């Protein structure tokens, strides 16, 4: 009797063992977590994640900044020629000054490629002195330019944003109390660093200005060189 019972158990166990692998097989293989989540083109309808009731993020399109800085006209490529012209004409002392300047710009943000806009800056300084110590050659220059600035897709702060300005520098040169104005084209190449958020912050801008020369025979003080500007900005 015991022998028959053992035989039945053994037969049932063997049948169960034969049937078990067939029952554990899934209908389809499960996706591997390491497989790329790719789908054939046009097979999946794109969707946008939205939180119900949440306000849509504001798309900021304009960048406005206004600040002050210094322009090192002594680093202008025409520094030596400018001083030589003044000294050869009899001015007792000449230099290319470190000019104080104010600067502002308004740009349209064309993400993710480039921002375009206009920039204006104004600088002033004394270039020479005569026998009379108060007799100075003074220059005030206003630069108006079109700006193109690289707009990185990630828009993170602290990333240098290369920019190029092309425009006209309008110079007012005062000699013996008489003003004279001329205009020369210029190019400025530099970098901007935004220290702040997407809405507001401070922008540090550094660039090098190269101006064209005045016509022959005209007084031609150097008004280019390296400039550094610190300017609060807002985006709206």
């Amino acid at each position, binding site marked *: 009797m015991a022998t028959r019972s053992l035989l039945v158990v053994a037969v049932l166990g063997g049948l169960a063992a034969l049937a078990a692998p067939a029952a554990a097989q899934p209908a389809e293989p499960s996706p591997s977590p390491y497989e790329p989540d790719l789908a054939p083109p046009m097979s999946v309808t794109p969707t946008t994640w939205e939180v119900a009731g949440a306000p849509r993020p504001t798309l900021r399109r304009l960048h406005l900044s206004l600040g002050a800085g210094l322009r090192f006209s002594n680093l202008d490529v025409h520094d030596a020629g400018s001083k030589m012209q003044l000294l*050869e004409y009899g001015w007792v002392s000449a230099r290319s000054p470190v000019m104080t300047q104010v600067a502002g710009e308004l740009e349209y943000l064309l993400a993710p490629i480039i921002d375009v806009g206009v920039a204006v800056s104004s600088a002033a300084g004394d270039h020479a002195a005569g026998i009379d110590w108060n007799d100075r050659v003074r220059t005030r220059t206003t630069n108006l330019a079109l700006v193109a600035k690289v707009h990185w897709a990630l828009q993170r702060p602290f990333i240098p944003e290369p920019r190029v300005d092309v425009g006209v520098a309008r110079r007012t040169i005062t000699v013996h109390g008489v003003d004279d104005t001329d205009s020369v084209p210029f190019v400025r190449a530099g970098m901007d660093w935004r220290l702040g958020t997407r809405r507001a912050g401070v922008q540090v801008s550094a660039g090098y200005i190269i101006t064209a020369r005045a016509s022959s025979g005209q007084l031609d003080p150097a008004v280019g060189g390296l400039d550094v500007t610190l300017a609060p900005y807002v985006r709206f």
Partner: protein
Amino acid sequence: MLLCLAVASGGCLEAEDDVVQFEEDFEDGVASWTVVGEVAVVSTNHPGEHAVWLAPGASMTHALSITRALEGNDSPYGGGFTDGNWIEYTGDCGGRPSLALEPASDPPDASVGVRLVLEGPPQQGFARTRLMFPALPAFIPQPDDDDDPWSPSDPPDVRFTSLVLAARAPCHVDNLRVMVSGGTLGY
């Protein structure tokens, strides 16, 4: 650091270190000059900058009042009047200008006239020219060698009484000065 270096290299304007004994920038015209020939005041490289233009053969004369001692420890002329005074101007004339000392009276005494003659041809742009005063002419009594500044035999002081500007070619002249060394290089 770079910022500091850039500011420092910008430099400062400095006052004239030498002594200006006579200066003319022609900003107020030539009313104080005696003019012979064709002369005009014109603007140059800026509407506020004026120079005098002289036609060939024209000349201008201005009174000077410069007195220099020939004796004494502070005399720059004790060694033969070869240094100390110079004349400088800005012009657009090429060639070699000349500077001469002439007797200002007849018979000659210690009064001296200074004559600057400009030569052509005209050139492009303005350049600064400096000319040292020449040696004292023979009509000036020379100091003796007794090294006594109070000696009764000492000659009188030299007096520069006039400046003549003459042109042999069309030429612009500006910022004309008679100078003597001063400051760190002064006697």
